[in-house]
């Protein structure tokens, strides 16, 4: 990989600048009416750099990243699949980019048509009765979902239901969301096969139960087989079922959350529907609901009247949990998801679930054959699976983190490490359907090679990576000696 790159402020020179990007100077008279007391005394110290320097700096920085476009990226729970270039190109047509969010509906029928059809397709693939698109990430969708559950109970006068049940393997956003919604979290264990312990669930539910948050397949990479029983228990206790759609890719076109008994779901469009992760976002966390939650959907939603599309607002949905974004959420991301779904179509959706599952089961089988330990060897993998390196950690003192770092040297992004927390020394591996068998085979070869190294020359592995722009970083130092903004004198 490329060498390190200076911080942009180190290129700065007083008086330099990409002046071509600047409007003509309107002169001080333009500001005569602004009271001095409200004005800034010193200009902000932004870098003063030329256009070529800027382009070169950020181009070089980009080259320091692993990405889907350059590397296999089997980051479990994150669904790092190919982001089609077409989705970006057509979502970035000048007509879409230039549209103001408050432009009149008469000048947005093209955009609104896409949003409406996206809502309809998402309903169809999930088996839900209504969809709202505005939540801006998975966690934001979770918030909307739990808020709807609360609003539902509240609307029925059932005011004390404030407990959210989550399995211990749940993603951190689930309990965090419950708290954000003012709920109390109750964790329940999973059994040795990765399924929820029904006994524990039965004990957990009660008159305070607002609902349960589940992913299925779970974060353990296995399908919750007794999901119907889970649904029965929770529903009978008066609670609702929340589906965390982060793992929807596994079952796309095969099973639908609505059919499993879920009342409300979010979808991570940036996972299942392949909008880009962008180095940390933007995402899109559309929510879907069963009919009893329809009145509570967050705003705005797109409606259709005859051949015209229009925004539904407060007056249309008076019981809505309200607005969660200034405008329409991540509209441009939604366009990308729309394009992706149209490209896949009905059959393509099913293929996603099938081939994501095929790749995961194949990779699991090959890794097991190569001597690695599966966390749930008796179970089918879903679209992802867990390998545990606790044996290697114990016997060779080489940890999951060491394997992860050494994989980088082999040109593979590392799988998710140390999540879910309950499996020791785990790698959560999600190949996705867009990777070829060749790539999976090469990954197995790299893992086997690292295993051999761990046995014969463990220092190579525990001191990895060796070929990245930096060596292993000191996270403890980062947190103790906080250096969060660049300062001219900063010498670490």
């Amino acid at each position, binding site marked *: 990989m490329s060498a390190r790159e200076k911080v942009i402020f180190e290129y700065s020179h007083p008086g330099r600048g990409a002046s071509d990007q600047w409007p003509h100077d309107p002169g001080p008279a333009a500001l005569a009416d602004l009271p001095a007391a409200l004005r800034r005394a010193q200009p902000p110290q932004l870098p003063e750099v030329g256009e070529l320097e800027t382009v070169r700096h950020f181009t070089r920085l980009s080259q320091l990243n692993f990405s889907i476009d350059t590397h296999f990226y089997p980051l479990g729970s994150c669904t790092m699949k190919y982001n089609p270039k077409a989705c970006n190109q057509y979502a*970035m047509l000048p007509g879409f980019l230039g549209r103001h969010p408050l432009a009149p509906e008469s000048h947005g029928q093209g955009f609104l048509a896409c949003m409406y059809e996206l809502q309809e397709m998402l309903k169809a693939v999930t088996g839900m009765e209504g969809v709202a698109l505005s939540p801006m990430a998975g966690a934001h969708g979770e918030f909307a979902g739990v808020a709807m559950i609360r609003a539902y109970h509240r609307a029925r006068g059932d005011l004390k239901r404030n407990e959210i049940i989550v399995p211990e393997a749940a993603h951190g956003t689930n309990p965090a969301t419950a708290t954000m919604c003012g709920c109390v979290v109750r964790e329940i264990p999973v059994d040795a096969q990765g399924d929820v312990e029904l006994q524990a669930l039965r004990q957990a539910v009660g008159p305070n139960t607002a609902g349960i948050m589940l992913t299925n397949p779970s974060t353990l990479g296995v399908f919750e087989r007794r999901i119907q029983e889970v649904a029965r228990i929770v529903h009978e206790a008066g609670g609702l079922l929340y589906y965390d759609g982060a793992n929807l890719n596994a079952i796309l076109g095969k099973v639908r959350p609505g059919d499993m008994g879920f009342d409300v779901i979010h979808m991570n469009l940036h996972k299942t529907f392949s909008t880009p992760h962008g180095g940390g976002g933007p995402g899109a966390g559309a929510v879907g609901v069963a009919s009893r939650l329809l009145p509570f959907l967050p705003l705005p939603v797109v409606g259709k009247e005859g051949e015209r599309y229009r925004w539904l607002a407060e007056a249309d949905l008076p019981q809505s949990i309200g607005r969660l974004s200034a405008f329409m959420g991540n509209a441009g991301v939604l366009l990308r998801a729309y394009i992706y779904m149209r490209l896949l179509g009905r059959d393509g959706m099913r293929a996603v679930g099938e081939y994501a599952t095929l790749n995961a089961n194949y990779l699991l089988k090959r890794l097991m054959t190569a001597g690695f330990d599966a966390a749930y060897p008796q179970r089918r993998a879903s679209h992802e699976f867990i390998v545990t390196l606790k044996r290697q950690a114990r016997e060779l003192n080489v940890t999951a983190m060491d394997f992860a770092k050494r994989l980088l040297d082999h040109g593979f992004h590392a799988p998710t490490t140390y999540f879910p927390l309950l499996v020791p020394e785990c790698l959560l591996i999600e190949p996705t359907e867009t990777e070829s068998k060749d790539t999976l085979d090469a990954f197995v070869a790299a893992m086997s090679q690292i295993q051999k190294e761990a046995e014969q020359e463990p220092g190579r592995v525990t001191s990895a990576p060796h070929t990245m722009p930096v060596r292993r970083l000191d996270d403890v130092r980062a947190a103790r000696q906080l250096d969060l903004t660049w300062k001219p004198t900063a010498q670490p």
Partner: protein
Amino acid sequence: MAFIPHTAADVASMLATIGVSRLEDLFDEIPRELRIKSLAGVPEELNEMEIGRLMSERAAADGTALSFLGAGAYEHHIPAAVWAITTRGEFYSAYTPYQAEASQGTLQTIYEFQTMIARLTGMEVSNASMYDGASAVAEAALMAVRANRKSRAARILVPGTVHPHYRRVAVATAANQGLRFEELPYCTEAGVTPAASLARYEGEDVTALLIQQPNFFGRLEDVDALTDWAHAHNVLVIAVVNPTSLALLKPPGQWGARGADIAVGEGQPLGVPLSSGGPYFGFMTTRMEYVRQMPGRIVGRTLDVAGHEGFTLTLQAREQHIRRAKATSNICTNQGLLMTAATIYMSLMGAQGLARTAATCHARTRELVAALTRLPGVRPAFSGPCFHEAVLLLDRPAAPVLKALAARGIFGGLDLGAYYPELGAALLVCATETKTQADIERYRATLQETLQAARAA
């Protein structure tokens, strides 16, 4: 099949390796009665050529208008370099930088972003982005409740001059945790929040005061007085600011004697296209003393084992993946790509380019207001300086006028009727540096004709 590289031979050999005979067998743990055969309701696939044509037609159908809309989303010049680089695969198709050594590009960009935003707001630390300006306001309110150890009320004062959508988002987000938002009235003559309106909260437990500068009407609040009042009463100040304006206006870090405690805002003006409302990004900054109460990702600079500098996510103990139910927020995925665009934008504009942009916006809006209020039946709603937005009052309902303008290719502004009925036929108009004098004249002339036609009718 679209995007699936498997050949029939691949599939056969993979199934054999797994030890099953059909793809369907891989789903045998799923109760049979739940499995579906096909997805009626999803149309047949389109190929790329077909979707390309459909999208081109839809984008063209929405047309392009001469727009004087603002209200939280602003049409600015975006340098071509910004998106040419931002959409490079290495930025576009990477995940959150969990593996620091393989993500130095994203991490260093965030570090640079944090530095720029901190300098722009005059605050000490910044996070790596929130979803948008509205959600950043909501998170700031929650954060203030955690940060203000002297307050137990979870009570936030919110001027009526704060963007109405932001106020709604704050309520929808934070009310579940018991926060109360109380509206402060504004002066209908001046369009600002009188410091005097705070007097009635003396001696009460108030957690935080929100101040938007420039406010929703484009007017400038007396931020020093408001801030000083708050600090004198153990109330934290949450600033909501427009980043373009900060090139000229006093940054939140310098409001009053001590500066604001938290500063947030909508990052869209920094190189992000309007795009029907998103993806944008929210920014959030605070004092170092509150950094552990801040939600969202934060990047720090550190050393590697060889003693070289590098960048990594830090202070993760605030976050949901570590702290779970006790995290500062549930936010996980944020708006990384937009943050990247903004960092490139700020690099290209620098302080000088941003100042010129702000000054030109200001000048154009003054010209616009001057031109339109020369027409009979149009007058300014408020006196006193604005930034790049202003409220106009018409002598007749705004909606039909706006509709007539739109039919002639002009978005004439936002009808405030639904938000501020007390103002009458009020219109929020905006002109940024993208508007020329000819554009303003076109609006003026078209409005003149529209009003004359209405009068004649």
